[in-house]
């Protein structure tokens, strides 16, 4: 077929400001990646309360939850196993977040919304609709048809883990309703930090349960909805979230980052976690 020549990189006859959106996406994701990597590598200031801060609400940064091992010398009260394992090589940096962040990271990396957005903003494939691509790709384009991006098809497995995390983070939000005083007595209370962690669960839940894979598994895979009434009802609910998937993707991304900032600054003593109730 004698097709017209493909346009060159960034070539377009569009006259609107098409570059704004990919630029914002680039900056937004970029900022999150830089901050979350930095925060994950700190290995400290990821909690308040517990034996270390008697009387403070027990907040745990979502970047570090669940804590398998606490970093040496830290006692968050959240560790499932204990202290940094002895077999950990001394030359290798240890941070409890390193065992955790890859999972939500992979979930977002393979998310249908994020894929569509970062293919545009990070590798110009295409930068925006009707805008030319770098010529090295040309007819060699592989998309998700072939390796390596074929692996994106494993997204549903990342979803299963992400659903487990919603449970764990809900538990953390529950735990954040208590503080332990110097005598070891538990007191109920609601602080700004408890609300921050609760909202984090709500926004992450809105994102996770609006997932395209979830929408498929919960009912979308059926052809006959009248034969599967419960699945149809569930599919309709998930579809409501799914049409807002991009919104929840951004809100939850921002808020999970802010939750870490909040816990970190409170833990460092720069911010005070004001108690509202109790």
């Amino acid at each position: 077929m004698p097709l017209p020549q493909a346009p060159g990189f960034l070539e377009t006859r569009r006259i609107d400001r098409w570059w704004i959106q990919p630029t914002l996406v680039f900056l937004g994701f970029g900022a999150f990646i830089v901050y979350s990597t930095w925060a994950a590598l700190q290995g400290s200031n990821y909690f308040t309360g517990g034996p270390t801060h008697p009387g403070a609400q027990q907040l745990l940064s979502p970047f570090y939850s669940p804590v398998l091992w606490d970093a040496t010398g830290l006692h968050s009260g959240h560790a499932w196993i204990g202290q940094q394992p002895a077999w950990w090589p001394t030359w290798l940096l240890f941070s409890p977040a390193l065992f955790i962040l890859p999972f939500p990271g992979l979930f977002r990396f393979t998310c249908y919304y994020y894929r569509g957005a970062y293919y545009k903003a990070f590798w110009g494939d295409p930068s925006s609709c009707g805008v030319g691509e770098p010529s090295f790709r040309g007819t060699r384009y592989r998309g998700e048809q072939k390796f390596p991006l074929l692996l994106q098809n494993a997204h549903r497995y990342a979803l299963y883990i992400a659903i487990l995390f919603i449970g764990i983070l809900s538990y953390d939000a529950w735990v954040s309703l208590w503080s332990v005083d110097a005598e070891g007595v538990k007191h109920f209370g609601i602080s700004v930090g408890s609300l921050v962690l609760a909202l984090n669960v709500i926004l992450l839940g809105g994102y996770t349960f609006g997932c395209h894979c979830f929408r498929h598994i919960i009912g979308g895979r059926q052809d006959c909805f009248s034969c599967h009434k419960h699945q149809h009802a569930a599919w309709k609910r998930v579809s409501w979230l799914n049409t807002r998937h991009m919104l929840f993707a951004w809100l939850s991304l921002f808020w999970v980052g802010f939750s870490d900032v909040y816990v970190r600054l409170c833990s460092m003593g720069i911010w005070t976690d004001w108690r509202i109730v109790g």
Partner: protein
Amino acid sequence: MASHAQPVTDSTTTRPVQFKIWRGDASGGAFEQYTARVTGGMVVLDCIHQVQAEQVPDLACRWNCKAGKCGSCSAEINGKPALMCMTRMDTLPTDQPVTVEPLRAFPSIRDLVTDVSWNYEVKKKITPFTPRKPDRPDGTWTMYQEDIERTQEFRKCIECFLCQDVCHVLRDHHKHDEFIGPRFLVNIAALEMHPLDVADRIADLKDRDGIGYCNIGKCCTKVCPESITITDNAIIPLKERVVDEFYDPITRLLRIFRSK
């Protein structure tokens, strides 16, 4: 001229607007500049017709209904795939010429007319609607509204091929031999999700139809004049069905047990 920067909305006055219209054929072509007299309420197709009637009688363009329903007048207006008959002049800035060019993902025939016959060849290869045995001896079936609701959206397609045009897999990567394009993924979604249909098109989708080439940028969804949620409601659910059948070890295992 400052006043010309504003879109033409007034239906009582007429104003000259510059157009750059692509003229040429498969061997090449270029933009040529024309002026149309525009009043409020006019659409791009009106301007093309005016230029054709008054200045260049041999300007080729394709149209039929002028009501956004036949899908013939697809073109690229200021770089965006759109129906000429549904693009109102009052939505376009007029301080610079309005560019009108043919679809870039298909071979040119002449001026604004492209050869979209590739699409008809693609359609012929798709396994047609294959209903199960009728539920009753009189040859009828029972169906409920909720069974058909989801695919009604896909049936609104007017085959304007704007989605095919904007899709970078065809437009930039020229994968016409390996990828059927969003319009036909919508077509397959309508068939695959139909509760009466018993044919299986999933293996074709994965290999011959190249669904994996779609990288879900949603450009097709954005240009669809029928507002079909192509990517989210048709393509992604089909991708998930391909995963069920070919990539997910758990669903594959389950299928083996069920078939025993």
